[in-house]
């Protein structure tokens, strides 16, 4: 990917200031009369915050191990609307499950296709449109909290540059039995995208949202996305963030979860693409009896770097959270996992778990793990841990003793390592779609 990367960065803060001006200009030019006043103010405030905040440095605690040289935005420009063949290709290639409840396709943040006929009684619509109809509902959940994991400058950039996105609202009591699928495409040389997904599930509602992020071509690009998940009392949200950007894209994504009383929220990342990808996920167990599960699977090869920062916050008693982040590393790939469980004062009877497992398939690969735990309450059950290991020799031998060639045995085991994350989503159709993507990446790598 070196051929496409521009000149070495001299002063990162200048680069970020200039890039910010370019990237925020398109949103700033939008007609303010078409948007609620609070949203216009919010974007203006975000612009100011972006300009005030310093660019991250590697020595910052939240950027430890991160190779910031890989996050090069010096050439990033706003994405142009998809036209003609590109628009057709994006819609045609937006294939996921066979019968989603709704399907929305966006190209560089602009709506290309919406199929919401089957979405009876639920809201699945472009965010900018939704702001005019469901403004108050959006206001109470829109980027309500920052993860505080180091990416605040980019979080502000997202808010200021936002001009697309999708709003999903499931009214109280409604259970959507098929997933809602969002396909967000990036296209064009050095194009940037600011995907935004806001999912609000009312009391007792239930929904699964699959968010696919893909590049139309193989050009370099920049993505800075936000997902907010708000589960009301007794609601169930499953959210899958399926990152398949081209191998020259630098991407950041923030996922914030608020789990109300007795709600269940499951969020999962599947990282297959990008040159450099960082996610900051934050889950707030804000209601007694809430359950939150955070999952991630990254398959990194070549010089890919996947950086995952997480925070599980418990501020009410009787809440549960579980985190499982897995990385498979080939070649000179790097991964970073940094996670914190924070049990606030008074959040007694918290159950919180955190596990990071790295499978090292190359001696040159590097997996960094910084698990953490801070407990300020009593009667809690918490654990955290991380492991990094190559494949098990006895397992390889067992497969070979059945005639399976060594390279096939290794691939089968690596795939097995991946599958348990996907299986935890508990949906066989979805499992099939996601595991096919992982298998496809393995196949492509073997051919290379």
């Amino acid at each position, binding site marked *: 990917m070196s051929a496409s990367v521009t000149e070495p960065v001299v002063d990162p803060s200048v680069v970020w200031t200039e890039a910010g001006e370019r990237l925020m200009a398109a949103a700033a030019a939008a007609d303010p009369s078409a948007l609620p006043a609070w949203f216009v103010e919010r974007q203006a405030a975000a612009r100011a915050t972006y300009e005030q905040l310093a660019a991250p440095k590697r020595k910052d605690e939240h950027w430890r191990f991160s190779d910031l040289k890989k996050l090069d935005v010096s050439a990033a420009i706003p994405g142009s609307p998809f036209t003609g063949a590109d628009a057709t290709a994006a819609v045609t290639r937006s294939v996921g499950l066979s019968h989603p409840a709704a399907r929305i396709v966006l190209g560089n943040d602009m709506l290309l296709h919406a199929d919401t006929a089957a979405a009876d009684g639920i809201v699945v619509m472009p965010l900018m449109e939704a702001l005019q109809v469901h403004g108050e509902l959006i206001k109470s959940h829109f980027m309500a909290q920052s993860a505080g994991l180091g990416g605040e400058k980019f979080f502000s950039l997202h808010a200021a540059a936002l001009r697309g996105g999708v709003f999903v609202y499931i009214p109280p009591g409604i259970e959507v039995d098929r997933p809602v699928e969002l396909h967000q495409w990036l296209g064009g040389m050095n194009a940037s995208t600011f995907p935004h997904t806001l999912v609000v599930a009312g009391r007792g509602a239930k929904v699964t949202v699959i968010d696919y992020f893909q590049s139309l071509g193989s050009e370099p690009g920049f993505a800075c996305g936000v997902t907010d998940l708000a589960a009301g009392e007794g609601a169930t949200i499953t959210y899958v963030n399926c990152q398949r950007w081209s191998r020259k894209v630098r991407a950041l994504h923030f996922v914030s979860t608020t789990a109300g009383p007795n709600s269940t929220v499951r969020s999962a990342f599947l990282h297959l693409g990008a040159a450099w990808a960082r996610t900051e996920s934050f889950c707030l167990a804000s209601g007694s009896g809430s359950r939150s599960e955070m999952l991630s699977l990254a398959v990194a090869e070549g010089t890919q770097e996947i950086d995952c920062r997480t925070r599980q916050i418990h501020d009410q008693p009787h809440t549960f959270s579980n985190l499982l982040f897995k990385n498979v590393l080939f070649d000179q790939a790097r991964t970073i996992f940094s996670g914190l469980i924070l049990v606030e004062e008074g959040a007694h009877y918290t159950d919180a778990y955190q596990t990071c497992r790295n499978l090292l398939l190359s001696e040159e690969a590097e997996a960094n793990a910084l698990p953490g735990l801070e407990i300020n309450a009593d009667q809690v059950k918490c654990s955290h841990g991380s492991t990094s290991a190559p494949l098990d020799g006895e397992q390889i*031998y067992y497969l070979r003793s059945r005639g399976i060639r060594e390279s096939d045995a290794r691939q089968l085991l690596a795939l097995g390592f991946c599958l348990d994350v996907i299986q935890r989503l508990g949906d066989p159709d979805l499992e099939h779609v996601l595991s096919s993507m992982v298998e496809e990446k393995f196949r492509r790598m073997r051919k290379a």
Partner: protein
Amino acid sequence: MSLAINNLHARTGQRDILKGLTLEVPSGEVHAIMGPNGSGKSTLAKVLAGHEDYEVTAGTATLDGADILAMEADERSRAGLFLAFQYPIEIPGVSNANFLRAALQARQPEGVELDAVAFYHKMYAKMDVLEMNRQFTSRSVNEGFSGGEKKRNEILQLMMLEPKFAVLDETDSGLDIDALKVVAQGVNAMRSPERGFLVITHYQRLLDYIQPDVVHVLMDGRIVKTGGPDLALKLEAQGYDWLKEEVLVTA
């Protein structure tokens, strides 16, 4: 056609375990190997199947004339040798069906895909013989299986892969009598004039259900006595001490 082992010496770490083992199992026959603990029974199984922890220092082992010691573990399997493990390995995330498919796919000529429908037909039929629930096809290989389920799963692999020679390493250990009968039923269903078996066991009990043509006694890395099925009965009744004395006398 035979599995022929001649003057085999093998070691693990600094310890010599096999010290000149010789035996031949012709196709169509079932040979049992019995012996006290530490005599080298499991080492023989692992050496034949190409486990990396064991080093062959002398001797030969051939399968229908082909030198299996020169082959990698996976080549030995494709050449027709099968080992039923004493302690089958758990493989999280890999379903039993995918595992078996991969093993059979490895036997297909380059570019030829395994017939998936025929594969499932065959697998279900074999599972019926072994009284295995269909859910075992989608479960991860051996993960969370009971001792008996693991052994049945080994025999299922044997039945699917149809080797020329099968070595069963203490397949009876950890089995109750009902499970033992089912496992034996699977093995007996696979007996044929084209296939040989080497059944390694500590107890005569297994041989009530899988009746051997020949019984060998392994002590201190060598075959010290070979006889018919009655030899197993005598060992069961009298233990190995009388043999130790006999070996000492002849030595």
